[in-house]
């Protein structure tokens, strides 16, 4: 299992994302003898071995099912618990695209946070690229370090460091991460409480030979203000702040309720009411153009009770009974429904470039 390429069949030691529902995707590492227990069933690792990634798997006791998914940075990010601070795909995909992160790009990221964006950087830069990730908070650093090792993120180097105070330089860069003894980052991503304190340290670690892009990720507008000023003071150009709004829509069906059926139903009610009255009181129903009062009026309580005995009557829209969405006995219209909770803000994204001057 690797974030750098797909494999087809599951083996022991592989990571599988067990898709239980849209809201529940659980990462597991396959180990003989173990079992995944969910409220939708129990799933033995032994049986997963040899199955195809993507396969649907039935539960051990004959009920429930999951799908066995191959990890990708995008699925990984939605499998993380929501309490963690995560840079989700609408933001990360835009940052990657806008800063032209491709195979071979050298990325500087601080802080690592949940490590979700690190995965996307690692995948996109590939084995020819390098990701230098910095995390200040030690427990989180250790957790991320282990996770990156478990996930074989070979092109990623995580460092325990408060970059705001101590900068980005690494004394002993492993040789295969070094570019002429230096970091030489092409792209910088700062998800820090005070990026303006880190920006002055960047000059020592960014590329000396090509244009460098940066994105600073800050929730509050006042942080943006300070960030812009710091970027300006440190020679960054083309500064532009943006926001990304990501929305997700589900497919739904809405019942087509035609007026003809409404009218038919109202007529049915009237005729049954008239019939009821006739039966009960033997009142002669006028066969004229206009209606007898009793056919339209039912504010007489005793009438109502009696009508109920006449049965359910014509009901075109299944009111009162539960109509299953998409029931073929009814006509439906496809509609899109927005997710029930939308992310109205993630952070402000401040982009800029640094162009090292060229001696000519």
């Amino acid at each position, binding site marked *: 299992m690797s974030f750098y390429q797909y494999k087809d069949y599951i083996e022991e030691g592989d990571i599988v994302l067990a898709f239980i529902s849209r809201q529940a995707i659980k990462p597991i590492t396959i180990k003989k003898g173990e079992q995944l227990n969910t409220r939708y069933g129990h799933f033995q690792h032994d049986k997963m071995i040899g199955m195809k990634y993507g396969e649907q798997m039935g539960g051990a006791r004959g009920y429930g099912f999951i799908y066995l998914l191959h990890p990708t940075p995008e699925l990984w990010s939605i499998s993380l618990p929501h309490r963690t601070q995560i840079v989700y795909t609408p933001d990360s995909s835009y940052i990657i695209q806008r800063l032209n992160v491709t195979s071979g790009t050298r990325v500087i990221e601080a802080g690592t946070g949940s490590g979700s964006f690190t995965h996307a950087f690692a995948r996109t830069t590939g084995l020819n690229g390098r990701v230098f990730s910095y995390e200040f908070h030690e*427990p989180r650093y250790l957790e991320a370090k282990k996770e990156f090792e478990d996930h074989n993120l070979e092109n990623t180097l995580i460092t325990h460091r408060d970059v705001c105070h101590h900068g980005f330089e690494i004394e002993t860069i492993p040789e295969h991460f070094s570019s002429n003894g230096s970091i030489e980052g092409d792209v910088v991503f700062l998800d820090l409480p*005070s990026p303006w304190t880190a920006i002055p340290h960047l000059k020592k670690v960014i590329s000396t030979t090509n244009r460098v892009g940066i994105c600073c990720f800050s*929730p509050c507008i006042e942080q943006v203000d300070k960030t812009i000023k710091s970027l300006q003071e440190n020679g960054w150009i083309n500064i532009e702040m943006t926001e990304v709004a990501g929305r997700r829509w589900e497919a739904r069906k809405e019942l087509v309720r035609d007026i003809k059926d*409404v009218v038919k139903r109202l007529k049915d009610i009237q005729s049954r009411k008239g019939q009821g009255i006739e039966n009960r009181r033997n009142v002669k129903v006028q066969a004229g153009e206009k209606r007898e009062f009793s056919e339209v*009026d039912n504010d007489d309580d005793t009438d109502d009770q009696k009508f109920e005995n006449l049965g359910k009557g014509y009901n075109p829209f299944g009111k009162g009974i539960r109509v299953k969405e998409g029931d073929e006995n009814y006509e439906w219209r496809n509609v899109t429904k927005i997710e*029930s909770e939308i992310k109205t803000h993630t952070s402000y994204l401040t982009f800029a470039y640094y162009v090292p001057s060229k001696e000519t």
Partner: protein
Amino acid sequence: MSSDIEVKPVKNEKVISFNQHVLIRLPSEGVKIAYLKEEGIINLGKFGSFQASGVVGYNFGQSFEIIEDENVNPISFIGEVADASEREDTPELSKDELTMMFSNSAENNQNIINIGSKVQQLSNADIDELKKSGASSNIGQQIIEKMISGHGGFDKKTIFSQQKYLKRKQQKFLRRFTVEYIGSSELLEYFIVKDLPRVHGISEETLGSILSYGNIRPGGNYLVIDETGGVVIYAMLERMKGEGSMVVVHENEHVNFSALKYADYPEDLQNEMVKTINWLQFLEPENEKILWEDVDDEEFANMKTSKKAQYERRSKRANYINSVIEVAKKGNFDALICVSTLHLPTLLPEILPKIGGSRPIVVYSQFKELLLDTQHCMMSDKRVLAPSIIETRVRKYQTIPGRLHPLMTSRGYGGYILWGTRVIPQESGITAVGRG
């Protein structure tokens, strides 16, 4: 210009009064509707209870805190900090200061640690003790602060989880509330919180756009389809304030006006302004008119008392139905306001003749796809000019100077409106120029 005509208010909108419904806004951002009876006690559940008489006489918008014996004290706003002298313990932190602190840590969230129950040093027993220790309502605030100060990792939590934490705690302990007039936004908010599908996901801003694009104003005469139980009708009535009228078409035997029970309109005023008619009566007026002939005086005099009452009731109802059918037949309504799940491409052509020239057509739906079909139907029907689907979305901010940012999440709803103008096309003799 009727400068010296003093309009009799149908209910008190300014001062909290008896025998009226009010909206109670709770620290949890929950809302509740209560009816203020003299001698009545309003129960806010875990927030406590108070005597209605304690709030009556204050202006709508006034905040209160519950003190001993179901009494209340007015406070300047729901986040107000009580005097330090009333406090028993340190640290003294106002809600604003707390919020500042929480937000502050967003700029310094590097120390976030995983907070389990172990760091929350206040036990349930501690909380119970605190609850007992003071009769004053600021105990709620105190408990929150104590919990926060006892919460080792609190200032290290992320802004998001802190907000959630504070809200959860406020919800649990603060005994404060605000009494508000039930305007149409408040009524809508109540149902959004309580039962969003019932109001078909209409947001406040979309309701506002329905009323503005529909040109709703005092004195108008509107044709209305409202499946929200009356929230839209209420919003229209509030804009009209006793002047004008509407015909509401519905699909059942009885119209559902359940939301209007909080409206506190005098029954006769409501009946005068809001006429109801079902679709059968609307579409087949001649068939549905009720055959009614008054009996002569002699015959009436000979009726038994019970029969007389029935006769009069039926006479009134027949006349009502026939008169509404007449109003609908006559048409020339000042707008069509439609909030319905009925399939409009087949229904709309039946309604359009009833709308006056140059009047707005406003159709709401939760789903843009449904309006799209109606919009296409309008475009081939020449009687609606320039139909557009309009989406209005409000984004709210955490409004703390120095810590401004949009709210991180919101519920996904709001809906769309389709707005066009009823026009009268020429049958022939029109040659377009330069347009497709």
